[in-house]
């Protein structure tokens, strides 16, 4: 008996084929993983099932009946619920209000009654929430529970979870998995979108793999292995970058000394951060999203003035200096949001020149020929698939990231700051970017890698610092780090001195 069948689904966004004739089926009472890399079309397929996108062609069957799903309302009426990656909660409203939103009939709304009804549902499904709390006061894990209960409250019997573990620390992941297993025993069917092989192997019954918008295949978990799934996912045997052994590291290039930042509301965003990045090493900063990483990057790149502390780059205190002064002092930046690192309306060559305009100046006028010549070289060096005259906004994420990196690395900075450098990139671009960072390390630069992707940190870093609520929980050599020990630090449970 199938809970859901999706037949020959095709969805295009402009020239991009996000789903190409994809078939998918979900049995009743199973946890079915939808596995694939970023951009493989997993989320698109599920957004079609939940009515957030409309397929260009294809059919959807629910409980062996063909259905039309044109909006989330249709999906809900067919018993489909979805917990999206970016939660769809209304922060100023209470938990109960969020859960009943759009799901209750009648004109009036009594806060006591909806809180009672939500409390009952919480009891029934064994998902603990506090109905009267405001959502904006909740942690990410708590918000996720609200989202799950919201779907169940609408009598969902098919629950789509889009990368539910991306925002959780390892210990919260265990809690989520237990809840899902219990719900499946009560008859729920779950679609679990992920690109993490270990998670898929841990809880799923079957796995469907997508690659580049196409279906690769569906396999029973029992008959497969992480290695097989990896091959299906990336389409070749080996992946990941080759890494040289740890080299002798040199003197510190960047020293962050008792750095703190308090925002306008008086909230401490960075608390007494002390770090050292040495020549020839990659220092990874791991942590769950929103624990001060963005603020740290802003302070280090001069976009925000720290409240206290020193940042010594090549023996110059750059705390509070302007971004251009920091660049000149030897910092090469790859910002967190690559769209913020480029000017979309300017061309590739203009963006490439942007950080070093002084070298292209000829009596106060820009030397366009020199810019073009340099751009052509950089485009070749960094394998950017674009011409110098293309507007940057027309480039793919990977090529845009290469523009950002080419620009900052061409100055041969002594310290390279890379914030979430591979987020949202496909495997090829990811490998390329990681390779470039290691190349910088081998050249003798100090690399500060701030990433929420624990695998990336463990793969690239020589030493790993963990940030939690704006504090550094400790710095450990990569060789001694395990996912578990880092997870405990990321959750703020243990400190390492």
């Amino acid at each position, binding site marked *: 008996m199938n809970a859901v069948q999706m037949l020959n689904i095709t969805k295009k966004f402009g020239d991009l084929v996000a789903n190409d004739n994809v078939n998918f089926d979900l049995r009743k009472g199973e946890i079915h993983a939808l596995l694939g890399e970023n951009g493989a079309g997993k989320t698109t397929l599920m957004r079609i099932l*939940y009515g*957030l*996108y409309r397929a260009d062609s294809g059919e959807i069957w629910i409980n062996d009946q063909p259905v039309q799903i044109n*909006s*989330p*309302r249709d999906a*809900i009426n067919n018993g489909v619920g*979805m917990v*999206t990656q970016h*939660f*769809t*909660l*209304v*922060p*100023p*409203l209470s938990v109960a*209000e*969020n859960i*009943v*939103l*759009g*799901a*209750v*009939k*009648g*004109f*009036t*709304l*009594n*806060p006591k009654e909806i809180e009672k009804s939500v409390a009952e549902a919480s009891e029934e499904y064994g998902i603990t929430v506090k109905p009267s709390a405001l959502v904006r006061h909740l942690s990410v894990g708590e918000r996720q529970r609200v989202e799950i209960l*919201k779907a169940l409250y*609408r009598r969902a019997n098919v629950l789509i979870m889009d990368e539910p573990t991306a925002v959780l620390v390892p210990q919260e992941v265990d809690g989520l998995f237990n809840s899902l297993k219990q719900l499946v025993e009560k008859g729920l069917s779950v679609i679990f979108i992920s690109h993490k092989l270990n998670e898929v192997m841990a809880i799923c019954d079957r796995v469907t793999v997508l690659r580049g918008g196409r279906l690769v295949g569906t396999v029973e978990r029992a008959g497969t292995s992480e290695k097989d799934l990896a091959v299906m996912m990336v389409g070749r045997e080996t992946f990941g970058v080759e890494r040289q052994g740890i080299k002798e590291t040199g003197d510190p290039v960047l020293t962050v000394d008792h750095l703190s930042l308090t925002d306008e509301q008086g909230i401490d965003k960075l608390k007494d951060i002390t770090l050292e990045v040495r020549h020839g090493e990659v220092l990874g900063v791991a942590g769950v999203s929103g624990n001060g990483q963005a603020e740290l990057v802003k302070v280090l790149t001069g976009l925000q003035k720290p409240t206290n502390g020193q940042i010594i780059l090549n023996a110059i205190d750059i705390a509070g200096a302007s971004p251009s002064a920091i660049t000149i002092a030897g910092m090469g930046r790859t910002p967190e949001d690559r769209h913020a690192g480029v000017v979309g309306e300017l061309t590739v060559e203009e963006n490439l020149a942007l950080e070093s305009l002084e070298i292209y100046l000829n009596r106060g006028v820009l030397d366009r020929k020199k810019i073009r010549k340099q751009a052509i070289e950089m485009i070749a060096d960094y394998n950017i698939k674009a011409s110098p005259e293309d507007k940057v906004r027309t480039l793919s994420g990977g090529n845009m990231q290469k523009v950002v990196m080419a620009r900052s690395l061409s100055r041969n900075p002594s310290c390279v700051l890379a914030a979430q450098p591979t987020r949202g990139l496909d495997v090829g671009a990811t490998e390329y970017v990681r390779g470039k960072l290691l190349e910088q390390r081998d050249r003798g630069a100090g690399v500060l890698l701030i990433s929420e992707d624990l695998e990336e940190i463990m793969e690239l870093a020589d030493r790993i610092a963990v940030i939690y609520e704006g504090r550094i929980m400790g710095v450990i050599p990569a060789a001694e780090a395990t996912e578990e020990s880092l997870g405990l630090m990321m959750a703020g449970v243990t400190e390492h001195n």
Partner: protein
Amino acid sequence: MIGLIAATLRVATPLIFGTLGELFSERAGILNLGIEGIMLLGAFVGFATTYSTGSLWLGVLAACIVGIMAGLLMAIMTVYFGVNQHVSGLGITLFCTGLAYYAFRVIFGTPANPPQIQPFMQTEFLADVNILGPILRQYPLTYYAMLLVPVVWWVLYRTNFGLNIRAVGENPEAADAAGINVYRVRTISLMIAGGFMGVGGAFLTLSTLGFFTFDIIAGRGWVCIALVIFANWNPIRVLWGAFIFGGVSALQLRLQLTGINLPYELFLALPYVVTIIALTIANRNAAYPAALLKPYKRE
């Protein structure tokens, strides 16, 4: 003093209507800069309807309906076509203002003396209550304005529809994913808002003046937008904001009569200056609806 309080309530009435309307619209995520024009059009349509039918309540109804239509027009532009809300709001104000001028000229020509109607009388039924009598001696619409404040609060916080409005104004994606028709909720909110604004404008012609002039609104619509911020999008606090503006307006009239030797323009400016100061103080922790000004379009 009693007279001052009574006058405060009178001056506050159109502001309460206008501000509650703007609040509805902004809680749903739409900044309606059309308010100034919609109030003027309401003032004119109310007046013209009463002039030709002789019924004051028909005038109020007509002003309300024309406000609802203007709200619908705003909704078509901002909700369905996703036009920039500043541009469409100012466009509505220009359009409604022009329409009111044009219709006035067509219907009344250019009379030497403005055409008059017999405006609402102040209620007498509570006028005998000892010292409060003069305060309670008000126009009927003033009572309705006071009544509307708790009603709006109740709708926003104690009804399903109100929950939907707050949700689409904060996070339309979430509302959409929860199965709410974001477009419809926003459109209805804008229509209700327009209705309130129209009645607020009509109060000026139908209650206080009894005739229509082109500068009758005199920036009250813009004051309403400031008062929404002052009220921090809370309907109950709208009342205090309107009272402050109304109180200072009533006070400056009396100050002018004391014969203090200052240019009268200074007194006229006083309520606006006080509004700016109050706004500056109150605006520090303003909690804007998160989706305000953002058109919603499902990908």
